[in-house]
């Protein structure tokens, strides 16, 4: 049996779909399937991986490393391989994926289709900047796509609309070893936080922001700077699993407030430097499998926007609105982005990006709608990998190269065989 009926969701579990899923274990089996959109580990929060009432292909069993050239650092790999797996396999040999998103469970195919960014975006640009070839399956035929073509720009960040991403060649980046020297500093308020991010010269930089702190403490957090190195640290502890959907009070305002205070307070006032296994630094939440269940049955949303450098005050206003709402979850992220983007629909722009989780409640959805308006006013952009709530016209206006993308996608998939719930909800291909 190729296709089975299933209910499935995005990572946020607020949106779901019922449809037919195939999960080929061989390339031949994949090529024999009717055209349908593909997904990997479904770590996009909303409906980027969903196709309700239609078919979708689960790529997670096609996850093999196909070749590596040590002279150039180019790794050939199947789309279902997970970034964390690649890091684990190659860091001891002195190589890392050049860009790694916040979860190691993201697949190579997903990283390409969302043109993800990492803690080094300000230097390295987005994931697509390090892809030297993509193998696409378009209706039973495999083609290779090279950088510099319109099809490449439409595929990178292209939400899977140009065909099934089967494999890719990635230029890995040299690293000194499989541990990270992490310097953690307290940022007492917004201005200090932004200043620390602006002034950071580290390879990897990220700010954990306490989105519950208000008044003078607004914007406080921990700025983490990391460099890879060689060393001996204890292996990561065994991953734990969230065994069931948590009750609604698990992430209620008082709990989150206490957690954030403790998280801030655990870093001494003068800062500290630690040595961590790479996984602990790059994928801190991966140690808790299925952590999305902490938000209970109703699921959750992540709001993520990026605004231009000059719009930092507008971002501060957004954070103030979030902090006073009492709706935010632990560990929001603030980061300075560089200009690097590799596709027509890539999210990054030079500026600051803020990501905050909210439980899926009416009040939170209303707040997110206001934050989206503020993002639009600030000349910013929302992220398709996180979005579940945006309004089509507003988000489409944030992507100036949308029409280039539409032209290319319309050319290679005129019958709309790869459309997903997200593409339909936001009318990305029709408007």
């Amino acid at each position, binding site marked *: *049996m*190729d*296709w*089975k*009926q299933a209910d499935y969701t995005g990572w946020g579990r607020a949106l779901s779909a019922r449809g037919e899923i*195939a*999960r*080929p*274990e*061989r*390339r*031949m*089996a994949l090529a024999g399937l009717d055209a349908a959109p593909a997904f990997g580990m479904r770590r996009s929060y909303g409906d980027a991986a969903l196709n309700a009432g239609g078919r979708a292909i689960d790529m997670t*069993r096609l996850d*093999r*490393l*196909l*070749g*590596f050239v040590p002279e150039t650092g180019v790794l050939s790999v*199947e789309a279902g391989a997970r970034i964390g797996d690649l890091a684990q*396999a190659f860091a001891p040999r002195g190589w890392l994926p050049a860009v790694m998103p916040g979860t190691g469970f993201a697949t190579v195919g997903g990283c390409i289709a969302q043109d993800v960014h990492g803690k080094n975006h300000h230097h390295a640009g987005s994931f697509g900047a390090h892809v030297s070839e993509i193998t696409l399956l378009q209706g039973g035929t495999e083609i290779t796509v090279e950088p510099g073509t319109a099809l490449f720009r439409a595929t990178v960040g292209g939400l899977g609309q140009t065909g099934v991403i089967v494999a890719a060649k990635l230029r890995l980046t040299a690293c000194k070893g499989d541990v990270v020297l992490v310097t953690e500093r307290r940022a007492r308020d917004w201005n200090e936080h932004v200043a620390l991010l602006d002034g950071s010269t580290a390879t990897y930089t990220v700010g954990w922001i306490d989105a519950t702190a208000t008044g003078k403490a607004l914007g406080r957090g921990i700025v983490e700077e990391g460099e890879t190195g060689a060393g001996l640290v204890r292996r990561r502890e065994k991953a734990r699993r969230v065994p069931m959907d948590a009750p609604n009070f698990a992430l209620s305002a008082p709990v989150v407030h206490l957690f954030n205070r403790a998280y801030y307070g655990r870093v001494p006032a003068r800062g500290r430097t630690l040595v961590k296994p790479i996984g602990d630094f790059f994928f801190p939440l991966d140690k808790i499998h299925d952590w999305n269940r902490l938000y209970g049955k109703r699921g959750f949303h992540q709001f993520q926007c990026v605004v231009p450098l000059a719009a930092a005050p507008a971002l501060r206003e957004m954070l103030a609105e979030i902090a006073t709402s009492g709706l935010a979850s632990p560990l929001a992220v603030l980061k300075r982005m560089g200009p690097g983007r590799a596709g027509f629909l890539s999210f990054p722009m030079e500026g600051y990006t803020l990501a905050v989780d909210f439980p899926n409640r009416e009040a939170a959805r209303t707040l997110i709608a206001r934050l989206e308006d503020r993002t639009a006013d600030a000349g910013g952009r929302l992220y398709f990998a996180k979005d579940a709530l945006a309004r089509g016209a507003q988000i489409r206006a944030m992507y100036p190269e949308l029409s280039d993308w539409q032209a290319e996608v319309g050319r290679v998939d005129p019958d709309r065989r790869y459309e997903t719930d997200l593409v339909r909800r936001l009318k990305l291909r029709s408007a």
Partner: protein
Amino acid sequence: METWILLGATSAIARAFARRLAAEGATLFLAGRDEAELEAIAADCRLRGAAGAEVLAFDARDPAGYPALIGRLAAQEGVLNAASFVGSMPEQTAIDAEPRLIAGVIADSFTGPATFLQMLAPLLEARGTGTIVGIGSVAGDRGRLGNYVYGAAKAGFATYLSGLRNRCGRKGVHVLTVKPGPVDTSMTWGMKMPFMTSPEAVAADIARAVKHRRNVIYSAPIWRLVMAVIRLIPEPVFKKMSF
């Protein structure tokens, strides 16, 4: 240095087991029919630490090619090990429509791998070491409505492995029988089954059992209990049950 030959190396369980062996630095011979797939798996194993990974053609229904494979293995120094993952399970309704399909099921799941292991055993015995892993099935523990031809083949293979263990154990060669319950692979895709486990979990169980020289394991382990109960059901009752 450990060398392993995996028969039916494109199966999901074999792939998971091959990755474990690769990470330990073993030399791998990946045997099967789908050469392109096997090459991809071999590349994956080499990049994950295997000392070597070579693709060999193996067809459970064509023993003519076996002597050449044995010859290739004989040229390999050190400890030799083998694991058979081959098997096929057509729908019972397809067999009802074409009973001659039975020959293929028996060849894939029993006589093919048994013939190969029978040729290989003297080589391991001569070296006085090594492990043979055979994948049976809980379906072999009792014939039931939905898959009794497959079950019969796996039962035959399990009995063969039991005898092989009896024979080889005296010469320092260990034989492990693995009886997986339902495993989340393309073979069970879309079927509703209890106590489903993952290929990675079965591979981990096999690795542990090889290390501890276990004789017969179930994976997931709960199936040992479940099958013990099912075997106890008296035939007059069992023949009226359908599950």
